[in-house]
């Protein structure tokens, strides 16, 4: 089977029912995408498929086809850069284990909504759990990234 990950077509030997998460982690060694719950409750496994955030832990690899998959390792562009810059200046991560998923979700949010308000941030980020409690900083960093994108460089 072939899947398109971070711009490259990759041949994988996995059974079609294998969740995309384990194909990314075990087969392709893209370990930035994390296992947190296995039932789409925590968001640590979030990746983009066709630009939309999905939970790779419950997504059979065969259902993805050759739609473009973007993991934290391949996440790039204006929104991703702005998110990472804000994450750095606000020092969002603590243990960091959930942060790949947080950053993928936040980048997808900014790609669709230029200046998200609190309810829009809540709705985009409610699926991503952080047990270190970095939520206030995540909210502040998304707003800071949005502001930097609306300021002409």
């Amino acid at each position, binding site marked *: 089977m072939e899947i398109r990950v971070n711009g490259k077509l990759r041949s994988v030997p996995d059974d079609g029912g294998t969740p995309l998460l384990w194909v990314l*982690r075990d087969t392709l060694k893209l370990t930035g995408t994390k296992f947190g719950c296995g039932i789409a409750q925590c968001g640590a496994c979030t990746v983009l498929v066709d630009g939309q955030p999905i939970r790779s832990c419950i997504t059979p690899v065969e259902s993805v086809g050759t739609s473009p998959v973007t993991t934290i390792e391949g996440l790039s562009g204006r929104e991703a850069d702005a998110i990472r810059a804000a994450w750095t200046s606000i020092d969002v991560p603590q243990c960091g284990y959930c942060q790949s998923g947080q950053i993928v979700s936040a980048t997808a949010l900014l790609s669709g909504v230029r200046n998200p308000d609190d309810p829009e941030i809540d709705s985009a980020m409610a699926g991503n759990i952080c*047990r270190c409690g970095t939520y206030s900083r995540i909210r502040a960093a998304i707003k800071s990234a949005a502001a930097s994108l609306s300021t002409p460089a």
Partner: protein
Amino acid sequence: MTTGEIDRRGLFKGVGAALVIGFALPVRGAAALAAAEPFAPNAFIRISPTGITIVSKHLEMGQGIETGLAMVVAEELDANWTRIKVAAAPVNPQHYANPVMHDQGTGGSNSMMGSYAELRDAGAAARAMIVQAAALQWDVPAAEIGIERGVVRHVASGKKARLETFAQAAGAIPAPSKPVPKAASDFRLVGQNVHRLDTPGKIRGATIFTADFDLPNMVRAVVRRPPRFGARVGSFDAAAALATPGVLQVVQIPTGIAVVARTHWAALQGRESLQIAWDDRDAEQRGSEELDVAFRALAQRPGSVARAQGDIASALAAAPTTITAEYGAPYLAHAMMEPLNCVVRREDRSCELWYGCQFPGGDRRHVAAALNLPPDRVTIHTLPAGGSFGRRGSFTADFVVEAVEIAKALPPGIPVSVQWTREDDITGGCYRPMSRHRLDAAVDADGRLRGWRHRIVVQSIAETIPIPGLVKNGIDPISIRNAIDPPYDLPDMALELHSPKVGVTVMPWRSVGSSYNVFAMECFVDLIARRTKQDPLALRRLMLPAKSRFHALLAVVAERSGWHRPRPADRALGLAISTWAGSYVAHVAEVRRIGEGYRVERFTTAVDCGRVINPNLVSAQIEGGIMFGLSAALSGEITLDKGVPEQSNFDSYKVLRITDVPLVDLHLTPSEEPPSGVGEIAVSAVAPAVANALAALLGLPVNDLPLKGFLT
């Protein structure tokens, strides 16, 4: 018993020899440090011509300790911060013991507290040796040499060079017997908002956690453990599991049945197919309701006396007013984002492990005992951990020894990565214990509190620690934390403890004994205030000794929360205070009624943690501690049905999400006192602050956690 090994061993053939060549050293760890033979003035500093490495004896599990420790060393070295790297220390309790634990380990919020003076000395000593080396090389007096941001300079001669240039020469200089650290007034880094060193890796998915660590020919394993605590494998049928593609071996180990496979997914699929009959003869089979009934009954009877001052019995008998209340707190799972895991590679006479190791000293002893090896044949490479909150600091090294037991069933040289699922984690025990509290207060005719008797019913954690003498006269010192020494003047006071035996395994959980004791005590103080018609803040001020460090914190939170200002009828404030690891906290929670439900809108928090090394990191710990405490207060609860945990994943074990997060107005008190703990200080007073706000809003007692019944 091993099943499938003989048939399938061929799959492993030949890989052992390849490992010797194929195995690459991890970037972090002692071996990498030794490779360049850098200037090593002491156990904490390695300087090579290309950079400076600070050796962290504490596990980075999110608290930012590696950045904090490195700042202290870099400050004394006058190093260029951008050239600082951190490596995790190897196991060596002689060099890396935690002075509070008397062993190598991270916990109790004491990492900075225990390392501050040691690392200042280490940095100052290295700096003096560098200066001496430069003086010899340049033939100028050492007293005329300065170092600024990593550049060694002799002003009169115009000579300058990077600090690292002298690494080799400094190696020949004897270490000063009494290094002289800087005056605090000369600090340039300490006290500043320095960015974390680990952020760049964590925002790119590049940080290698245990779950991500890979070795050539590594196999994956998961374990099916019994649903009930204390149960054992009666019999099992591995045929279907072994028929699962990718499954290599099925192994019975003391904790259950392990499925070893080529991939994690295959191991999970194989585990689903296991047929196991559990032997429940020694298992805990009581449910939460039965335990609650038993705990409530114990709370009515005198327990072992942990402290008796004055004469509370007579005070209660003579008091014109007595106030009695009971409080309860449930079992809680740690639920850190990275479930437990451990990578083990066993050879015939040695063993290497890679994982987020919180107690290197104890873990190594347990691994050595499991393998019948001397401890120095066990090497632990510490990797950053995706949270812990106490769970990885296992006194029995449970998850580490379990991984070693699986490695014992594999051919030598085959590395195995053992991964817990979220269900394994939430149902796996090692919980914060459930507790029951009864408090009886004696109040004078003029409304002044004479004192109280506090009876705690809680399982002993110390009983599980293999150190003799921890439990004395029936008193587990962990069970009574914060209850033994309330911050208030109580002329008559008694503390009694019941430590019932329950089969459910228990462990420290961020803030440990204070997490339930502070809830009971701080709710009780508010109840006394309500019954005696006093303001809860004024009553606390009255009860606190005049010199208490809490007075300053109470003044701050009163002012910033608008404690004395009128507020709308749909809002109420609740106050609670706590201490931990030398630090002090005061929280005011603001709760707002929304329709039939309620929401925690805001926390106003003041913390006195001595000298603040990095306000950015300390704030993150306090914010995180509030969220951790709030998560537990609102919805955290493990309940048992006939001994089986009823919660198993984040769908049933509800944790705080971004939608529930209150605003936090945090004030750190400036202080010249030595740094004290920040990892746990914020947690324990969160639940009573919210409960007190709810009680004020509703005019109802709020005595049991979690508070979900009161909140949407």
